[in-house]
């Protein structure tokens, strides 16, 4: 690491430790969708009103509602129809996925990279949900924790780019990646805390690491760890082949036997279709 990069790394560490890193605000629509989904007294009409208040979100929901993954063989024409068909849970997931996206971050030159991170996070959330369902564990926690497990990555990338500009340092892609890897987990933790996510989500995201060899101890962390690897295997099989996937320590924590992993992998096409729907 060059002295310039070390100096930037020090500044970044200080920024994170002092709580000075710019943690993105949870978009209002996502916040409201979360509150509605968690409130036992809320109903579909409130969710409809919320979505109608955001034109681009309403359009997004209609696109997804009409995608093959959700409503094959039908043509939904109204938002009410879409909500009735998809249900509160799915709608809140769509609202979250749409609102917490790549657009939240200002990372010039890295838009495609951040979009990839986001797509992987969405795939992780869907896989984590399926794994949680199989383990008789909470699917909402798994979805949220999967969605947010790497939220610190674009946030820290934005901070690196800002600092590099301030300090007039030119970084290579490798150096940026190294810094991002070092600090992303800490920042993910800061984001979910700042967004006041449920305790189990905060715990799972806080314990998550990208290391394939690490044995997660918490059940939810193991779910998102396995979910993230399933997502990588599905999106970029060259980066994580089936053989390595089957030997992940996270599967041991989850007590998933090989035949159970195979059963889960049998859902790949369904997860792919849902991912296409959510990211369309």
């Amino acid at each position, binding site marked *: 690491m060059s002295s310039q990069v070390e100096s930037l790394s020090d500044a970044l560490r200080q920024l994170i430790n002092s709580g000075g890193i710019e943690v993105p605000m949870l978009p209002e629509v996502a916040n409201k969708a979360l509150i509605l989904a*968690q*409130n*036992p*007294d*809320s*109903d*579909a009409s409130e969710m409809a009103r919320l979505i109608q208040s955001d034109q681009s979100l309403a359009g997004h929901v209609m696109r997804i509602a009409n995608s093959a993954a959700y409503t094959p063989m039908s043509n939904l024409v109204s938002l009410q129809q879409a*909500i*009735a*068909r*998809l*249900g*509160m*849970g799915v709608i809140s997931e769509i609202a979250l996925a749409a609102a917490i996206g790549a657009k939240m971050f200002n990372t010039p030159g890295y838009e495609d990279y951040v979009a990839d991170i986001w797509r992987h996070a969405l795939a992780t959330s869907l896989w984590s949900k399926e794994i*949680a*369902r199989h383990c*008789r*564990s*909470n*699917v*909402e*926690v798994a979805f949220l924790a999967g969605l947010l497990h790497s939220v610190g990555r674009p946030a820290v990338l934005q901070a690196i780019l800002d600092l590099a500009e301030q300090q007039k340092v030119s970084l290579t892609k490798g150096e940026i990646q190294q810094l991002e890897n070092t600090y992303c987990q800490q920042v993910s933790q800061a984001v979910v805390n700042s967004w006041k996510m*449920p*305790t*189990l989500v905060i715990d799972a995201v806080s314990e998550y690491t990208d290391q394939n060899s690490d044995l997660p101890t918490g059940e939810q962390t193991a779910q998102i760890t396995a979910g993230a690897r399933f997502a990588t295997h599905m999106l970029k099989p060259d980066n994580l082949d089936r053989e390595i996937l*089957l*030997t992940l320590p996270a*599967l*041991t*924590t989850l*007590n*998933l*036997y*090989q035949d159970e992993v195979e059963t889960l992998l049998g859902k790949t096409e369904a997860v792919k279709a849902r991912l296409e729907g959510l990211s369309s």
Partner: protein
Amino acid sequence: MSSEQFNYDVLVIGSGPAGQKSAIQAAKAGQRVAIIERDSLFGGACVHRGTIPSKTLRENALRVKHMRQNAALADFELGEDTEMHTLINRLDEVLKSHDDYMRKQMDRNDVERIHGRASFVDNHTIKITKVSGDTADVSVKTVIIAAGSYPRNPDNIPIDHEHLFDSDSILSMLYLPSSLTVLGGGVIASEYASIFQALGVKVTMIDRYPTPLGFLDSDMTDTFVHAFENMGGTWMGSQNVEKVYWDGISDVVTECADGTVVRSQKLLCAAGRLANVDGLQLENAGLSLNERGLISVDENLCTDVANIYAAGDVIGPPSLASASMEQGRRAACNALGIEIGTMSQLIPAGIYSIPELSSVGLTEKQAREQYGNVLVGTAQFAEVARGQISGNTEGLLKIVADAEGKKILGVMLVGEGSTEVVHIGHMAMLSNADVDIFVESTFNFPTLAEAYRIAGLEILAQRPGK
């Protein structure tokens, strides 16, 4: 094959209450013992998905109920966003301490713990499959099957563990729902229905039988239903459920045959449990399941194959942790030729609903069927000072005696403390004491135990010739 040629003298499949006790008993008899568990933690469903988690939730439900009852002392409302995690906050500690205790006990007795799945190759050979996929065959002299049970999910109930749960997944809900439909009227259904109702969830219990817990006398179940409805719950008996589905928006819809439709945010299906024998490949050992899907055993808990024993939920009722432990111990003793006394048929049943119910011996209905005329004494908890002091007035103790009013045939209780207090009657019955023991003995004052004296006096007053 001589004993030395086997890898183990005794291999126990399953580490629940029956498995633990059989392994320990066999080890104490000097055998080389291994216990195989497919879950990563020891203890079986009882510890991780059943008894202990639901009782931990129950403790907090009772606290909430008491705080609501004592509104003068604390103006209390449970927050709308209360996480389930908060309500079973001590669960991790309880489970960890139980796991530690069991591991130490196994280690102390030199019982080898194996994490993996078991399947029979033949009656003396077990294939062990690890989570990693690695396999190994071990030879065993004696096998004790104590693999437990899992929830039965009827075909017309599409359990998704998101909106429609079974008893293994119900505690995975993130937040308390506003409303819950409970299908079933057995022990698990009654426990969860009353616990969630005490937490403020609007609960509707639906079952095909007219009363819940039909194996108890109607005065007991009436008290339970009354207490449940007083908390705001709804009991719908004699209802056949035709269709259950998630409406895709916000409700689970339950349609009954008479046209009644119940909508709720979540649903719990508690339709009994099935023996956990999938994957054991019993046929390779020469075993088959009976018509109820259970493993048949004789009075010695031996299966149709001489070196294979079974205990606990895999052999069927009473399917109580307490009975399973004793069955496990006895299975090991019988397999090893250790002399034991006859197993008492007096097995108490405890139902950890709110309020609790408990019974030992015959119910009044059973006693009348068997003995014709019987004498019955009852005591309301409201008549007992301790009941009044603690606000525990919604309870009842009943003693059933023979026609002479002497021999105790059964004891039943409903009300908080029932599962503990029942053992006074249990001990009296085991020692063949007459009803008089309750009248002639001195009980602490104030205690719920005094109810025994009141009920006993009522029987004495009815004795022939009085």
